[in-house]
């Protein structure tokens, strides 16, 4: 791989809790190539969104980044002061948070909300230039220029999500982190929004981290997938490998839980519940739900290791 654009190295996030410390993200490492589409999948509570926030140093107390480093190109994010970090958010790494389309300011026109991002990042443009750039951004995400003069309530869900993509990409970031950007949209609009994201990403040459749990969407959109379980990465592999030969039993269950459109009666869930983070089982965190678990799985925690060009944390792989 060429020089990675984003590198996450041994990142851990812990939350203080009266019953003991909870590791929401536990020793996570991965690297993103420029222009790569990277997926992060797992159940709710597996730490996907926390990881995204940790990359941007946006963890709030009682949460704390305990260990690890994040590099954007040659910049170590921990070296930046608060002001430097503020500048880097949006301009270097942009986050499209979960439910962001409902967090647009209802009393500001869309154009004004994009302009805010410019001024906030010290870009003082004259009126004409600002107007031109906002129009170009809207056209880029497939919205008519007139949307700049509209309020969020005048837009449909898909249009709002596109407006959010326009805001996220207005400073030409190198990495776009999209946290379930289409979870509230129906399938037809989902495809349009994802096509928009893909187009914008290609134009910027940015890398994308797509967070979600729809394996169908992952299969169709991303290049490489990391599967997260109880705060840890359990498998990282090219998406075609994940679909054809999932190595971790949890990945296999995730792929199988996607309802098929070919055969009926093939609807399988993952038995059991996600473990409580403050009370993780010993050994492999997945072993109580795993049909293949052995003595070793119950006693020894598997580490992420390389198997045929993929990485997997399972004793049986």
């Amino acid at each position: 791989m060429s020089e990675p654009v984003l590198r996450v190295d041994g990142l851990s996030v812990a939350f203080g809790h009266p019953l003991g410390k909870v590791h929401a993200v536990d020793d996570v490492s991965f690297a993103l190539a420029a222009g790569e589409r990277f997926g992060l999948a797992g159940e709710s509570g597996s730490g996907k969104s926390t990881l995204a926030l940790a990359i941007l140093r946006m963890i709030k107390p009682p949460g704390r980044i305990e260990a690890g480093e994040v590099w954007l190109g040659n910049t170590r994010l921990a070296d930046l002061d608060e002001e430097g970090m503020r500048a880097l958010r949006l301009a270097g790494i942009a986050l499209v948070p979960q439910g962001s389309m409902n967090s647009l300011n209802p009393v500001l026109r869309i154009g004004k909300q994009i302009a805010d991002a410019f001024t906030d990042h010290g870009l003082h443009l004259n009126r004409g230039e600002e107007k031109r750039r906002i129009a170009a951004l809207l056209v880029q995400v497939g919205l008519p220029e007139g949307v700049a003069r509209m309020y969020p309530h005048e837009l449909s869900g898909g249009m709002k999500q596109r407006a959010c993509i326009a805001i996220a990409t207005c400073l030409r970031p190198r990495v776009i982190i999209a946290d379930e950007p289409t979870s509230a949209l129906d399938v037809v609009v989902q495809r349009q929004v994802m096509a928009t994201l893909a187009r914008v990403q290609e134009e910027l040459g940015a890398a994308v981290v797509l967070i979600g749990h729809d394996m169908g969407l992952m299969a169709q959109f991303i290049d490489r997938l990391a599967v997260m379980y109880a705060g840890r990465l359990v498998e990282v592999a090219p998406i075609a490998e994940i679909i054809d030969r999932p190595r971790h039993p949890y990945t296999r269950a995730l792929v199988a839980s996607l309802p098929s459109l070919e055969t009926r009666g093939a609807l399988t869930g993952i038995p059991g519940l996600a473990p409580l983070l403050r009370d993780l089982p010993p050994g492999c965190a997945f072993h109580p739900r795993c049909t293949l678990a052995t003595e070793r799985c119950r006693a020894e925690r598997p580490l992420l290791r390389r198997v045929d060009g993929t990485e997997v944390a399972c004793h049986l792989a």
Partner: protein
Amino acid sequence: MAPKWPAILRDAVAPLIEAIDVSKRFAGGLGRESTLALAGLSLAVHAETPSIIAVVGESGSGKTTLARLLLGLAEPTGGEVRYRGTDLHKLTREERRTFRRDVQAVFQDPYGVYNPFYRVDHVLTAPVRRFQLASSRAEARELIGEALRGVGLQPEEILGRFPHQLSGGQRQRVMVARALLLGPKLIVADEPVSMVDASLRATILSSLRKLTDDRGISILYITHDLATAFQVSDSILVLYRAHLVEAGAAERVIAAPQHPYTQLLISAIPRAHAARDWLIDEDEETRKGRAPLSAHGCCFADRCPHAASDCLAAPPDLYHTEQRRAVACVRFRDHPALSAGALGEVLHFTPALPGAPCDESFPHSGQAE
């Protein structure tokens, strides 16, 4: 209009719930245009042939309006909803009480329906008290325990807990258990799994399927997810902008969709296979050259690749294209058109004969075609 049933025959032959050409229009107020939420839909649920009917559509297509009409929570502006042959709004006090037991609802948000200050027991004991289902505490506990086991939950894991101590999937199944307590004939489930993780969806949907197969409870499954609808339901109704565009047996609708909107919906589902054929911007590009939306014509004409001048002039009839199948598209005008209200009977589901082979891992009532 469907026949008025003579009183004696009524209980025996009238469907449990029947929607006859129901429409709902929300007034705009102060000179604003009114909104059509549902246009002339017919549907029948028969108590003696339990099945799962899925109502599929995007947000704003009228799915929830249909649910509210069937539950008697909203009044139709056209047509009528009948419970055992009587208009829902003309039920006597006694009939209304049995209706409230026979037809139960499960809603979308398994977080919002609970009062966080009460233990989850509260949602289960309230109906027991309200409908005097048990004469003693022990009997009530027994009933509640049975309902919880019916949806695959262990009573000791659930009772005595507060809502925040349960997972979303558990909370949603407790809501199904609450519905079960009253021994319903029909459960109207409005997006029951859309807020639940993909891995848990299967568990909840399988427990719904079990209710139909083992206990003979019909389910109206309202969803925007065509794939789960295909997995659990016997029939599928596809709504688009308040109009029914296609209805039929689940396998047929998915394997051979006839309406262009259904075809678009199916092609837009991202599949977990190696071929990357999903991500295309076609909708955006081709849209410009297409017909404008006409107030009089087909509701899908502005997005339809087959739109012709006929499509803009008048709304298409509902054509009876095959057994248990109807499509609202002029491309099928060679087939007989259905009169208003006839759809409920056309879709009437006939279950397989007892003893017919079933898939063991996930029992389905087979299809009698």
